[in-house]
Each structure stands twice: as structure tokens, then as C-alpha cells.
């Protein structure tokens, strides 16, 4: 006999089983519905603690002791078991979730610690770097050159440079061979620095225009500045070595910042660089500047040699006041006036006691020179500086916005000897020079800084300045004829000049100017005296066109 699947389940024949199955299913369906309904009513309390409630329970639906009630009870138990299983599963799940959350929390905390540690390490690294930077030497490179300094800046070495490529084109008086030229006017590597905070030094050799005092054609490298300066304070400083003598205002203006290629006739009468000791300083933030020193003593416009064996000395000094420098009066802040001067005695053995030989026919041709660096006055061979030489120079400048004005007057009174004849020659010179920066930048004693440095790609063209100057140098008539030949040397030179300066940036400057110098006296030489300075120079007015390309840093 074939046993059907339902029989296996119920133990009854299929037909009977089917009928009973139907009834059973119906009851079960009813019971489930009732159970669900009951659960909906009673589940919270029932499920939790089995406490008796006033709700209707499935057992109350069927009569007590009936088969249906038993089935309901069995089903109820099944439901309870299921509920227990669900509870267990839920608890397991909750535990897993809690464990996972704990793990996540720990991981988050560990990561948070790692991040904090990394951040702190970075912070400490930065602190260490900042601390180390305080002790590390610094290298800075910029428009002001390259500087290598200790962290505390007590030690520093700076490299600067000045290169000037000039041209001079003479117009009317071009009968002196070689005067028109393209030349390397200055080529100076400049080394400056500080040691032990308070000691400054400067070393400036020149590989350009030549040995001081030599004829213009010479081009021997020489030392221009070499000094040590002790800064006790800005007010009290002591300088020793070779440096500019503190007399002439135009002479003291840095070479890179002069208005024209060459300084004016007035600078012919003041010394250039000399060997000596100087006490100097700025008082009240530069309202008063002073300098006073003892020097070997050199002739007008001369540079000292590096050694000078002579017994006599020269005393030079300068006082300069800018009374409004520290006031709110901006229009007057850069008004300065002062006086420089010096006194010394020279013996006839002092070969540098007479003026420089710049522009002369030979290296021994001491005299004075024009804007074009040609000698227009020369002492006769055999003339020597003898005894007293004094100079005085009232001076001043005014800078306000793009406007600049500089004026200076100099008396150079020198005792000279020629054999048995002697004289005290009283030479004078003065100048007035002014400028206007067309592009509006401020003009200063230390040049012009363009607001918009040259860069045509963005339409910037630097700064432009027009400049003009008038100067005169008057030779004492007592110089003629015993100390100078009046046929060839002028007794007076008067010069005017105009120019245009183009400041491409702080480092590059291009200049163009024209200068005309007229003479009184001279121009009457014959033979070789007429063909060499000063005879050749004083024949006609000097007209010269200058250009300059300058790199300074």
C-alpha cells in the first residue's frame, strides 16, 4: 500500500486525513489570528515577565479541556519558544553590535591618538625648526647684494658690486686723441660686513678707470676703501683705514647715486679718499651728523696711496644738520645743511699734496679737470705743496618727493712753492644741481627706487629723472704765471649740464647727459703745449655727450 505523505505526518488515510487536515488548518488559522490579536493586546507585559493582564488570552477563547484548547496551549508554547529564540538572537545580535561598537570606538580612539601624536610631532618639529633657525646662519640675496650672516646677525659678510660702462663723445674740442671713448668707469666688487656685532668693515677695490691720481688712460687695480668701523652706538663710532674724507657733500654721495656720470667742478677742490682715523656718528636719529678725523692729507680730488711716509697730518671734519628729519613736517624732513672743512700742513716732499693729475698729459701733471675728465688747469712742473692747506665747504641739499636740489661751495686755500717762490692760492668752486623724477618717485641722496621696475611684459618701465647742473671753478690769479702757465691753463671753468636718468630698477640705471664747459684764459699754447691738456682742452669750450649703463647691487 502506498503511503502518502500526509499519512506519514498524521498516521491516518489520506481522505480522512485530508478532511481532518482541513479542519486542523482552519483551527490553526483561527488560533494564529487569535494569537496575533492576543499578542497585539498583551505582548509587552506578557513577553516581558508573564504577569497577568486584563487582556484576553488565546486560552480564554476556546473552552477549557477541549482538544482545541490543548492545541492552542501547544501552539502558545511554540510561540513562546519562538519568542525565546528571537530574544536570544536579539541579545546575541546586540552583544555583537556592542562589541563591534566597542571595537570601533577603540579604533577611533587609537586613530585619534595617532592623529594627535602626529600633529604634536609636527608642532614640535616646527618649534625645533624655528629654534634651529635662530641658530642657523642666514643667506639672503636681493637687490642689496648677497649677505651671509650668523643667526644673531653679530657676524655678517655682504657682497655688493658696482659696474659702470660709460661712453664720452666730445663734440667741438675733440682734438685730444683718446678722449672720446667707451670705458669701464668703475668695476668694483664690494665686500662689507660685521664682526662681533659692533665692528663693521668695508673693502672696495677698483678694476676700472685706474689708479688714483694717474693719467686717465691708466687702469691699474687699486684699493679705494678699506676700513674698520667700531660702532659703540650710532652716536659714537670710530673708523680707521682708507675712506672718503669728510668734507665735500657731492664727494660723499655714493658713486652709484650721483646725478651725472661725473661729479662737478666743485669736487675738484675737495680730497677724495685718504688714510686716517675718524670719529663720527648720528645724533638724535640723524638730525645731526658729525665726523672729525686725522688723515695723511692729500691734494684736491686726490686719493691717497696705501702708504704715505710723511710727518705732516691733516685734520678734516664735517657737521651736517637735518633739523626737520624727525618732525612731522614731511616737506622739510629731507632738508639738510652743513659745513665741511679741513686744515693741514704739507711738506714739499709730499708728492700727493697737489691736486690729482686726472685728465692731464702725464701722471705728474697735477691740476683740475672738467666734467669730461680733461685737465683744464695744471701746475707747472716743479710746483710743490708747501705748508698750509685749508678747505671749507658750506653745503646743503633738499629732497622732497620727486624734486632734488644739491648745492655746495668750496674754498681750497693752498700754499705752494716753486723754487724760491711761494704763494697762498685761494681757489673757489660752487655748484647747484637739481632733478625731477618724471614718474613721481621720491628722489633721495641715495638715488631713486622705481615704483614699477622695468618689465615691458606687464607695461612697467621704471623711473625717469631729468637733471641739470651749473658749476664753476675759479683759479686764484696768483697762480699765474709762476705756478701755472696762463697760455695753456684756464683761470676759470664754468660748466652746465643736463641729463636724463632711467632707473630700470634698484640695480640697473641708464644715464645720458650733455655737458658744456667754457674757460677763461688758456687756449694760447703753441707746439706740444697746444696739443696736450690743458692747452688742448682750453682751446674751445668742452662739449661732451655721456652715456652710462650701471649695475649696482
Amino acid at each position, binding site marked *: 500500500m502506498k503511503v502518502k505523505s500526509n499519512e506519514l505526518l498524521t498516521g491516518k488515510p489520506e481522505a480522512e486525513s485530508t478532511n481532518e487536515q482541513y479542519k486542523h488548518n482552519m483551527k490553526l488559522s483561527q488560533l494564529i489570528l487569535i494569537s496575533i490579536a492576543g499578542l497585539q493586546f498583551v505582548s509587552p507585559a506578557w513577553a516581558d515577565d508573564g504577569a497577568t493582564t486584563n487582556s484576553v488570552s488565546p486560552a480564554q477563547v476556546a473552552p477549557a479541556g477541549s482538544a482545541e484548547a490543548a492545541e492552542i496551549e501547544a501552539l502558545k508554547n511554540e510561540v513562546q519558544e519562538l519568542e525565546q529564540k528571537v530574544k536570544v538572537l536579539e541579545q546575541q545580535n546586540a552583544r555583537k553590535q556592542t562589541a563591534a561598537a566597542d571595537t570601533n570606538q577603540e579604533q577611533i580612539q587609537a586613530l585619534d*591618538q595617532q592623529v*594627535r601624536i602626529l600633529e*604634536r*610631532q609636527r608642532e*614640535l618639529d616646527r618649534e625645533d625648526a624655528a629654534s634651529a633657525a635662530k641658530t642657523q646662519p642666514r643667506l639672503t640675496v636681493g637687490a642689496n647684494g648677497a649677505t651671509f650672516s650668523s643667526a644673531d646677525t653679530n657676524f655678517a659678510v655682504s657682497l655688493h658690486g658696482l659696474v659702470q660702462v660709460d661712453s664720452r663723445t666730445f663734440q667741438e674740442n675733440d682734438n685730444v686723441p683718446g678722449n672720446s671713448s667707451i670705458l669701464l668707469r668703475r668695476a668694483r666688487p664690494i665686500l662689507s660686513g660685521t664682526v662681533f656685532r659692533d665692528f663693521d668693515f668695508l673693502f672696495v677695490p677698483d678694476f676700472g678707470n685706474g689708479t688714483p691720481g694717474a693719467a686717465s688712460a691708466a687702469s691699474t687695480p687699486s684699493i679705494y676703501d678699506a676700513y674698520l668701523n667700531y660702532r659703540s652706538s650710532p652716536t659714537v663710532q670710530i673708523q680707521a683705514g682708507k675712506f672718503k674724507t669728510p668734507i665735500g657733500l657731492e664727494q660723499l654721495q655714493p658713486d652709484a647715486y650721483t646725478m651725472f656720470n661725473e661729479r662737478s667742478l666743485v669736487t675738484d677742490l675737495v680730497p677724495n679718499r685718504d688714510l686716517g682715523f675718524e670719529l663720527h656718528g648720528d645724533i638724535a636719529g640723524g638730525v645731526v651728523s658729525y665726523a672729525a678725523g686725522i688723515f695723511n692729507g692729500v691734494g684736491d680730488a686726490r686719493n691717497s696711496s696705501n702708504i704715505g711716509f710723511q710727518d705732516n697730518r691733516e685734520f678734516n671734519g664735517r657737521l651736517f644738520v637735518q633739523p626737520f628729519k624727525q618732525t612731522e613736517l614731511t616737506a622739510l624732513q629731507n632738508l639738510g645743511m652743513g659745513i665741511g672743512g679741513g686744515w693741514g700742513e704739507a711738506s714739499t716732499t709730499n708728492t700727493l699734496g697737489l691736486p690729482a693729475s686726472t685728465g692731464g698729459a702725464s701722471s705728474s701733471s697735477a691740476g683740475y679737470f672738467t666734467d669730461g675728465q680733461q685737465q683744464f688747469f695744471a701746475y707747472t712742473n716743479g710746483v710743490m705743496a708747501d705748508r698750509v692747506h685749508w678747505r671749507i665747504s658750506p653745503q646743503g641739499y633738499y629732497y622732497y618727493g620727486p624734486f632734488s636740489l644739491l648745492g655746495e661751495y668750496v674754498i681750497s686755500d693752498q700754499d705752494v712753492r716753486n723754487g724760491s717762490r711761494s704763494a697762498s692760492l685761494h681757489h673757489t668752486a660752487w655748484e647747484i644741481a637739481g632733478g625731477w623724477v618724471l614718474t613721481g618717485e621720491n628722489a633721495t641722496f641715495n638715488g631713486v627706487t622705481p615704483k614699477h621696475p622695468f618689465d615691458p611684459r606687464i607695461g612697467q618701465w621704471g623711473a625717469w629723472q631729468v637733471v641739470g647742473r651749473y658749476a664753476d671753478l675759479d683759479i686764484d690769479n696768483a697762480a699765474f704765471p709762476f705756478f701755472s702757465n696762463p697760455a695753456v691753463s684756464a683761470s676759470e671753468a664754468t660748466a652746465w649740464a643736463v641729463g636724463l636718468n632711467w632707473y630700470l630698477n634698484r640695480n640697473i640705471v641708464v644715464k645720458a647727459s650733455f655737458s658744456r664747459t667754457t674757460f677763461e684764459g688758456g687756449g694760447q699754447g703753441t707746439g706740444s703745449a697746444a696739443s696736450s691738456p690743458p692747452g688742448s682742452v682750453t682751446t674751445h669750450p668742452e662739449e661732451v655727450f655721456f652715456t652710462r649703463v650701471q649695475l649696482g647691487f
Partner: protein
Amino acid sequence: MKPILRILLVLVLATVANAKDIKLLNVSYDPTRELYQDYNAAFTKYWKAKTGDEVVVSQSHGGSGKQALSVLNGLAADVVTLALAYDIDALAQNGRLLPVDWQKRLPDDSAPYTSTIVFLVRKGNPKKIKDWDDVVKPGVIVVTPNPKTSGGARWAYLAAWAYALDKYGHDDAKARDFVKRLYRNVPVLDSGARGSTTTFVERGIGDVLLAWENEAHLAIKEFGGDKFEIVTPSESILAEPPVAVVDRVAKKHGTTDVAKAYLEYLYSDEGQDIAGRNFYRPRSEKAAAKYADQFAKLKLVTVDEVFGGWQKAQKTHFADGGTFDQIYQPE
């Protein structure tokens, strides 16, 4: 004018005429800022009353070793109040800035107060740190400064080493391994104790800070007991921060007398009270009794007992190539 009035007038004028403005620089270690702020005010008042002179005391703080180096390199300290004697020895031996027997010039080997190393943990002590053994457990993050630059760190290092020696029957190899495990748990080395406090307290890094006792109390005072708690280990080290006049500098400044008085006043009742108030253990019995409640009792060993003095400890552990260099591998 009566003679007595004349005498009084002369004395007043002499006092006024002689009154000076004096400047002192106290170069100290990291966690003494608050102590010396209090103390300087008290000393200034005391000195003014005694001599009529105004004293302005400037302070400089940093890791003790670092500070000693700064003085050697020219920091013009009239007095030094550093974390440990070795750092002042360096000034005497390497810089000849004061005599080598400087420690004998003041009582208690020139250490007017003491301190020790304790644990600062986060409130509730989540890592259950009770003693040094807990600090070396894997997974515990320890914050302590660099022993190369910090005096406090050197004290902490030696405290751990001393504990391990006791624990392992004076087996140096095991002590070394113990301390190595400790530093394995140190992710950040600040240069000074104050930096480490910042790391732990303000940056929220780590489970435990090996702290100067006074620094731990200050952290709780400043940031509240609801954030941190102090755990005192069963054993630590007796830290004796010394003080000294830097003779050469003081002589140059003309401050020798006032510098001496400045340090001597640390031993006065007021000086000792200020030390106790700032959570340093005073030397005087009176102040020690007054502040006894704020200091836990624990076994304290000394550097001399366990390590044969600072010179030897420094050479063995903290000199270049020493034990610390060998065991600490920065990540």
C-alpha cells in the same frame, strides 16, 4: 637743626642717594614659572625693605639641559635654578662660570626644595595605571620629555630604572629592558617638562604623563580635578633641584650680593612657604609640616644611592651614546 635730625636727614639722603635699580636674571627650568613669579615678588619686596634698592628679576625657562647650554653660550644669568646638579656642574666645569664646589655654598647641597616624579592620568584612570609596571604595558601611551634636554625627564628615567632595579633584584639588564619598554610607549619627546604637560593636558595625547609632582598638582589646579588625577607610584626618586649664583656674570653685572641674597632667601620661612604653596616639598620642618597633606608618602630613592651621583648617572645614561641613546628608537 638738632643733631639727631641732622643724622636722620643724612641717613635719608644717603639712602636715597644710594638707592639703585638692580636687574637679575634667573635662568631656570621648565615648571618653575609659577614658583618664581611668586617668589620674585616676595624677594623684591623683602630687598626693597632691607636695602631700599629696587630689584627687577627676569625669568627664563626651558628644559634644564637646554638652559644650561644657553648660559654656557652666553645667556647672562646672574643665578641659575635648574632641575639637577649636573647641569650646574656643567657651568662650573665647562664654562668656569662658578666654582666647582658651588653646591657647598648653601644648605642641603644648594637644593632649597625637593620634588619627585608622579603619574598624571586622565580622570577615572582608564588604563588602570597604578605603578611603573602599568606604564610599560603595551598599548599604554606615555608622555615624558627628552632626557637629553629636560631635567624632569632625567629624573623620571632614573625613577623608572630605580624601580626596575628593586623589582628585578638589581639586575641592570632587566632594568634596562624595563626602561626600554617604557620608552617604546613614548611617541613624542618634548624638550621640556612644560612642553610635555602641554602634550598631555592640552593636546590630549597619552594615557599617562610622567610629571614633576608640582607640575601634576598645577595641572589639576589649572584644568580641574574632573579631568585628571594624580597616581603616586610605589617608588620614585627624590629630585633635588639646585640653585647657584653664576659668579662670573654676577660679578660683571655687579649683582653678586643681591644674587646671593636672592638664593639665600629661598631658605627663609617665606621662601619655604612659597615653595610649599607651589607644590614643591619644602626643606624646613615648619613648611614641610604645613604642606604635608598635599604630598603622598612613597619610597624615594636618591641619585647618589642608586646611581652613584649625577656625574656617573649622566655619563652612563644620558651622554651621547649612553643607555638612553641605545634604548630609544624614535619612530
